[in-house]
């Protein structure tokens, strides 16, 4: 294990070779290498040094940091006035990871605040719905925050969400474009952040339909770049081809980027859990996505953090965006192989058989696909605000901590500490457990033929989506906490980025399933 996850302290601290060719990229890289390696030399390591000094995860400071802005934000935060659900999500999810429980009074305040952001016409806005339009990104942040802080029963927010399902669905359909993209809000931009946020919410609330999903897979697939990572968006050039499914020639709209790769891989995971048709979802190259992702991990001299693009600088927020995508890549590669090994057998048939030979897939141990020790060292040494300061986590030394970087650093730290696998046997067991007689009323599609073609098909989709959403399990034998148990944080769920203990009761509520 350790030889496959070498510590920064056991690796040569070599700078990026200059090749005698200075450019501004090299200048910036050298500056960052110096900044981070200096800090590594200065601070005690996470595991105690000769003098018994250590650098640990300063949980108390981070809780203080989060608490300092949760009930009152100074005026300069006006730039986040249209992102208040994100301020809530970054805080409540970070506290969840740190194992800090909010008192019931505060949870109630979270719920009542978020419900003020719910638009009567469907979807959540970035602030009160009497000020702002609904938007896909705050809709994700609000729904996940309600999963964390709310509950079923009066005042818990989940009943309100239940009543809002059709409205949220209608808002999603309003955002939909013919090429498979979604505008993030009325008149807004189209990119994979919107797709990801929409798919998570539609999955959790049981409001997926064929019309909502039409062409979404092709949109995501077209965002994959030649490097293997994904770009923000794609452009669909009209083509004279008459075949409806190939109406567009598509091109990705920029270089591969960590944030958009996370959104795309997670979207793809959700899509590939839905039995829509044998050609769905359109292919992506998961091996190329994995290669790109692992190449973003920085060298020892930059502390082993992730960068967000080739030849850019490491930044703690990519611990989640890139690191969190790696278990998803692993699962997508496994799915590719399974489909390959079953030849042309359709996915829907494969699902019904629940065949035993699938179980072996869970048994093959894979090596850690990124350096889990180095990423934790980066978080502890380079990403934490200096001890005794404000607390919180940051992009890199010299940058101020903020809620976004705190949440993304901690989410990535969780992925590094805990080995998360998507388990075929758990999914199979979930399928058997699924009670299709339970659930909420089906969504009314926009067009008469936009829904599932039969009740049987709808139930099959619900079962697959629910069973796969709850298929992530931790391989506890592979837990790896640098610096000892005191640094351990809770386990986040890939794809959704909330704790498993939050995901389960929430999704069960909307699918009518028992604990």
């Amino acid at each position, binding site marked *: 294990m350790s030889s496959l996850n070498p510590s920064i302290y056991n690796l040569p601290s070599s700078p990026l070779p200059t090749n005698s060719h200075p450019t501004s990229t090299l200048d910036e890289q050298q500056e960052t290498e110096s900044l981070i390696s200096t800090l590594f030399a200065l601070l005690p390591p996470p595991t105690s040094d000769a003098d018994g000094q250590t650098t640990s995860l300063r949980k108390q400071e981070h809780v203080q940091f989060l608490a300092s802005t949760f009930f009152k934000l100074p005026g300069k935060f006006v730039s986040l006035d249209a992102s208040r659900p994100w301020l809530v999500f970054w805080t409540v999810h970070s506290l969840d990871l740190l194992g800090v429980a909010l008192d019931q009074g505060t949870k109630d305040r979270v719920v009542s605040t978020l419900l003020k952001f719910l638009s009567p016409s469907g979807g959540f806005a970035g602030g009160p719905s009497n*000020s702002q339009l609904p938007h896909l990104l705050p809709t994700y942040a609000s729904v996940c925050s309600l999963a964390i802080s709310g509950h079923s029963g009066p005042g818990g927010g989940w009943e309100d969400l239940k009543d809002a399902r059709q409205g949220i669905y209608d808002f999603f359909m309003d955002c939909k474009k013919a090429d498979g993209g979604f505008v993030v809000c009325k008149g807004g931009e189209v990119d994979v952040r919107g797709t990801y946020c929409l798919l998570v919410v539609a999955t959790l609330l049981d409001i997926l339909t064929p019309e909502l999903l039409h062409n979404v897979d092709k949109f995501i697939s077209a965002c994959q770049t*030649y490097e293997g990572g994904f770009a923000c968006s794609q452009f669909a050039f009209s083509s004279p081809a008459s075949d409806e499914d190939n109406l567009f020639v598509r091109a990705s709209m*920029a270089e591969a980027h960590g944030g958009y790769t996370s959104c795309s891989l997670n979207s793809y995971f959700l899509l590939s859990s839905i039995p829509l048709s044998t050609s769905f979802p359109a292919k992506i190259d998961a091996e190329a996505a994995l290669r790109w992702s692992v190449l973003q991990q920085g060298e020892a001299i930059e502390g082993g953090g992730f960068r967000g693009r080739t030849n850019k600088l490491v930044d703690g927020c990519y611990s989640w965006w890139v690191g969190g995508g790696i278990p998803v890549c692993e699962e997508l590669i496994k799915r590719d192989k399974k489909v390959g090994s079953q030849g042309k057998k359709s996915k829907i048939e494969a699902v019904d058989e629940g065949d035993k030979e699938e179980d072996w897939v869970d048994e093959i141990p*894979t090596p850690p696909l990124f350096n889990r020790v180095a990423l934790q060292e980066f978080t502890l040494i380079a990403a934490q605000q200096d001890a005794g300061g404000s607390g919180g986590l940051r992009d890199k030394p010299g940058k101020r901590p903020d809620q976004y970087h705190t949440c993304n650093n901690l989410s990535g730290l969780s992925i590094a500490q805990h080995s998360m696998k998507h388990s075929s046997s758990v999914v199979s067991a979930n399928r058997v457990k699924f009670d299709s007689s339970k659930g909420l009323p089906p969504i009314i599609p926009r067009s008469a033929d936009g829904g599932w073609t039969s009740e049987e098909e709808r139930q099959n989709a619900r079962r697959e989506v629910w069973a796969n959403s709850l298929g992530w399990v931790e391989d506890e034998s592979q837990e790896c906490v640098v610096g000892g148990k005191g640094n351990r944080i809770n386990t986040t769920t890939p794809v959704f980025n909330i704790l498993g203990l939050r995901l389960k009761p929430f999704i069960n509520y909307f699918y009518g399933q028992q604990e």
Partner: protein
Amino acid sequence: MSVATSSYIPLAERNLWNDVKPIAQDDGPNPVVPIMYSEEYRDAMDYFRAIAAAEERSERALELTETIIRMNPAHYTVWQYRMTTLLELKKDLEEELQLMNEFAIQNLKSYQVWHHRLLLLTHISPQDPSFEIEYIHQSLLPDPKNYHTWAYLHWLYSHFYTLGRISEKQWQDELRWCEEMLRVDGRNNSAWGWRWYLRVARPGAETAKDGLKDELNYVLKSIHLIPHNVSAWNYLRGLLRHFKLPLTPLLFAILPYTARPSSTLPEIPQDFDFATPSVPLPNDTPLPVPLALEYLADALIEQGSNAEAGEVFSELSTQYDKMRAGYWEYRRRECVEE
């Protein structure tokens, strides 16, 4: 732009606004993450809510949206209202574009500023978008990796191409501009991404027809100039994968970077006419270059020499790229177990 609270004249005290009844923000009791707004922002938003509720499209509405956007350029609702109002009032959109030029300088990372610009260009719909291309080129100079700007440039060409308004000369000029960006900084991955669009991804790109060999030589020369440049290696692999070409024929062009003992190396064939590494290699080029070893291993798999490929992956895992020890071990197992 921010005004000291003491000198601020509330909108209620201005004649222009005295017919409007402001609407307060409805946060409910005891909200979490409340922001202590400046008086100016709160006041402007109170009146914005009122005019938005009444769907008022007017000059004063435009002024108000500008005031708010200057304080919070991420306020997507206000942007949306502004755009709709501009269109309904049939305002001069070129004037608005000028205003955006000023905004872009201060808010390079705002999604909304760039999206507003995209909508403006869509509506203005110039016969020749050269002026806008030129503006984007200029704005990339001080910030040559700005993601929004590059995404916008992709859109600009794609959109105006579909309208038939990009001439062959413009495509050629753009490629030259991109090559200049790469000459200045061959490690700028954004510029590599743009090259991919121009040479491979866009409809009508020539690489697929007869330009592929030129393209391969272009990227090989870039590798020879900066052998540790991940951008160039990724571009090379991207080309080979996209055009479903084998890796083996180009192996001679990168073999020196693998630092295999010369006795084990085959002779470069006489008719090999791809760019080969400079002799001597650039200073500060420690060998082997990890991505050259990866290339070698993948070429060996292609040749059916999986065991040898496995050994190369093992070298990467245990010696030359230990940061990714687990990944290279995964690659090793994949090729020896299949």
